């Protein structure tokens, strides 16, 4: 299975992986959801959610799924669709791997507010923190991608960015407390 982040110039490669997954898996998903009375837009939404779950559970850390990629992704889609409908009719059990993938809390935070809050920490800092904590890039790749001379300097910068972010959140909380007193 290709890994998305284990190279320096990963954006185009990441797009290519997702294009492949859409082309290979989405037609099956579309047919499944159309048969169950869903719309194309709903099928797109469910598939996108499934891709996010799949990415967070496996692609970004390079772990291997036991089933084929299509079966695994489709399993997540079915689980999401069933949750959406809250029906037990035609329920098809999914494997433990798939269940574990969808049981993890799936929080969404208002995007506009989040982005404006986080960008205060600086775009480079946010990209660095996202690459390490969300994309799970190794320190070696972090050093390469962000132009650090060593893994150690990448680590130091990571913690500096985290400290900056922590300080900003603390200030925001204090400001709110002053306002409500």
């Amino acid at each position, binding site marked *: 299975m290709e890994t998305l982040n284990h190279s320096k110039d990963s954006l185009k490669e990441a797009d290519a992986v997702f294009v492949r997954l*859409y*082309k290979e898996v989405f*037609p099956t998903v579309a047919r499944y959801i159309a048969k169950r009375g869903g719309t*194309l837009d709903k*099928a797109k939404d469910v598939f996108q959610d499934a891709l996010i779950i799949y990415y967070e559970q496996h692609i970004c850390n390079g772990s291997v799924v036991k089933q084929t990629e299509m079966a695994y992704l489709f399993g997540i889609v079915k689980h999401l669709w069933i949750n959406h409908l809250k029906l037990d009719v035609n329920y098809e059990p999914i494997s433990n791997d798939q269940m574990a993938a969808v049981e993890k809390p799936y929080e969404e935070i208002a995007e506009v507010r989040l982005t404006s809050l986080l960008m205060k920490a600086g775009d480079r800092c*946010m990209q660095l*923190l996202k690459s390490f904590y969300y994309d799970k890039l190794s320190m070696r790749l972090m050093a390469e991608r962000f132009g650090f001379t060593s893994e150690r300097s990448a680590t*130091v910068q990571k913690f500096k960015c985290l400290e900056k972010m*922590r300080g900003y959140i603390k200030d925001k909380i204090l400001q709110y407390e002053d306002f409500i007193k």
Partner: protein
Amino acid sequence: MRTSLNELRKLEKYLQKQLNPQDQLLLDAQLLLDKDLKDNLCLQQKCYRLINAYGRAQLRSQLNRVEEELFSQPVHKKFMQQVSAYFK
């Protein structure tokens, strides 16, 4: 690394349960006694949640872009037609 960065590293290891048992116990005790340290731990946890949410928002933007391309570019016409046919 300076002291403040070392604190971040230690708290991170604590949250990931990567400290050895003695250091874990010591930090448990410090967190009970030092309010600032406990506050910093909570703030750091908030940071990780926000970074995760930011990462997910960026991924969603990327997927929206890929989807937009697949459903609008002539080079993907066959794919569009195949999928649209199921909803007629």
